[in-house]
């Protein structure tokens, strides 16, 4: 296999608040290969979105990337200047957000917004840019793209708006697309349509995708690789088959057991006791040990990520069989 599109090494993003240091992303490493979908799974506050924002260089003070490397096609993104980063963003890496109403400007027509994204990165004529925008819209399954180009965002439904956001992300044929909960706000039948388009597009364009979500079932159907985050760290990593089929970390196991569809009707759901710890001044040791039924005294030592079988690794002193 060729060099991966993205190689993240020991990424640390911390927030320096008055109350203390919040380690939102703490020692996160992963690889995304060309044409692959990496599912980044976790509950709210686990740091999955902050990982995505770090890759895009979108961390605002009091947050700061304090360590690690983000190698996009071999170039360390963290070392880039503001201007170089801007050239990268929307061009080589693109992001799709949860709420398409927030990403689209409500007072500009779709064509204005799309053409702006094209001419920011390439020297093309207005006519060519218009044609590219129309082509992108038809690629994501929007009927009569030529007419829809002159519409405003409010004239689209939620699902159509998200398609427009995806079309904008695809405009400059990025190597990497970061999708942050893009289907969470959508109805299930519309979610199915978007997932179908994404699956088709990754196959056609060969772009790598990081799919950030809390929904394990979406990841199960879409992702090649899965990374599970908990309290700012990746606790388990592997192929979708390995992680979801035979989880080795007690947290992953607990998450899968909590899904109602995985449980027999009427039987009590297996639940994880307690709640996610505050990331503010997190004590050393495994952050899951308070909720873990397998915890032992040595869990007070911080576990390191260690490989188990081919491709599957886990951050746990006592991995499950």
């Amino acid at each position: 296999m060729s060099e991966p599109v993205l190689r993240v090494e020991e990424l640390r993003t911390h927030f320096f608040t008055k109350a203390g240091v919040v380690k939102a992303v703490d020692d996160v490493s992963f690889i995304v290969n060309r044409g692959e979908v990496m599912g980044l799974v976790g509950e709210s506050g686990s740091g999955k979105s902050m990982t995505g924002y770090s890759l895009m260089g979108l961390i605002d003070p009091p947050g700061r990337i304090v360590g690690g490397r983000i190698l996009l096609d071999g170039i360390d993104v963290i070392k880039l200047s503001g201007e170089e980063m801007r050239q990268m963003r929307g061009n080589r890496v693109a992001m799709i957000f949860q709420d398409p109403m927030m990403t689209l400007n409500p007072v500009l027509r779709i064509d204005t917004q799309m053409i702006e994204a094209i001419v920011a990165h390439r020297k093309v004529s207005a006519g060519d840019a218009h044609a590219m925008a129309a082509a992108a819209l038809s690629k994501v399954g929007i009927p009569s793209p030529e007419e829809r180009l002159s519409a405003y965002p409010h004239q689209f439904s939620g699902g159509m708006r998200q398609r427009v956001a995806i079309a904008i992300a695809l405009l400059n044929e990025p190597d990497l697309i970061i999708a942050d909960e893009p289907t969470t706000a959508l109805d299930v039948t519309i979610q199915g349509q978007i997932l179908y388009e994404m699956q088709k597009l990754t196959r056609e364009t060969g772009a790598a995708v990081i799919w950030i979500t809390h929904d394990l079932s979406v990841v199960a159907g879409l992702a090649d690789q899965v990374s599970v985050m908990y309290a700012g760290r990746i606790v388990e990593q592997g192929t979708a088959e390995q992680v979801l089929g035979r989880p080795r970390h007690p947290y992953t196991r607990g998450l899968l057991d909590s899904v109602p569809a995985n449980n027999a009707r009427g039987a009590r759901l297996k639940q994880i006791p307690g709640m996610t710890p505050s990331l503010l001044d997190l004590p050393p040791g495994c952050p899951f040990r308070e909720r873990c039924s397998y915890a032992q005294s040595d869990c007070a030592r911080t576990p390191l990520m260690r490989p188990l079988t081919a491709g599957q690794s886990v951050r746990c002193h006592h991995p499950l069989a």
Partner: protein
Amino acid sequence: MSAADPSMIAPRSITGAQPALIELNGVSKRFVKPLDVAARIGNVFGAAIAEEVVHAVDNVDLRIAEGEVVGLVGESGCGKSTLGRVAVGLLAPSGGQRLWRGEPVEQMRAISARRAQLKMQMIFQDPYASLNPRMRVIDIVGEAPVVHRLISAKQQVEYVGLMLNKVGLDPTLMRRYPHQFSGGQRARIGIARTLAVKPEFIVCDESVAALDVSIQAQVLNLFMDLKAALNLTYLFISHDLGVVQYIADRVVVMYLGRVVESAPAAKLFNQPNHPYTKALLAEIGRVEPKKRKFAPVVGEIPSPLHPPSGCHFHPRCPYAMPVCSETSPALIEVSPRHWSACHLNTVSNTAVR
């Protein structure tokens, strides 16, 4: 049509075996946007501008037996929340009748209507928006039972403590404000507030949708424990079929204001009859580590302002026939307790794939 005429209701009603705790007969809810001055003036000069009417709920029958958990599913804008609000009495129906233990609520004397109303409560979706940020937990949970004279003001502390214990919260936290709690704890406060007035029938409107999956499991378990302990009856509204499959005894599927299918949960999930239900089930979240080929339902959810003619689902339906755009199919009992509104059941007997 007259909803009060029993002969008109009987064939359409979705009957359960036990006597109904709450019953909705031919209930409709219309939202009308009145014409503004300009439109009214325009009409004087013959512009013929009509009022905009949304049929949020269109002639729905629903019977819920005591101790039953009915799941109400559908996509956004299908009217499931409106139906829930009508059922619980937060919205007055534009047509049809609401019966509590066999008695029409509208015709009850004021005092018994109030007593019946207190037995029906609602738990809302957003644990952040549904708690007053300026009230302490003790007031959020304890205000209603004092107002309704279930307890005296002196008993409030003890009573609220009891309620918090019931939902798995530490009673020593009752002097705190909502912002001092996590999402899961807030959901529990919302449940405690509902339980405080000793309801018998609870409408849960997307009550676990905003929670993380590990917290969602805790709250779902709490719902089932409370049901067993207090003999509660739930109308569980959700767009998450996985949750409904787990919790509901019977499932009602809505599409654009109408019930399209209703069946015992096991039946509905194993042998869905309506093409819309089948489409929904295809999208159900299963955590199988296998690459799925997503084969989505085509088209958008139509605007409830201008619903399609005939069967509302026909523009998206893979089995649509000419008749589907002409007449709207009636709910018929395709097998015992399994009701479906689809022309395929009457036009031909060939099973739908």
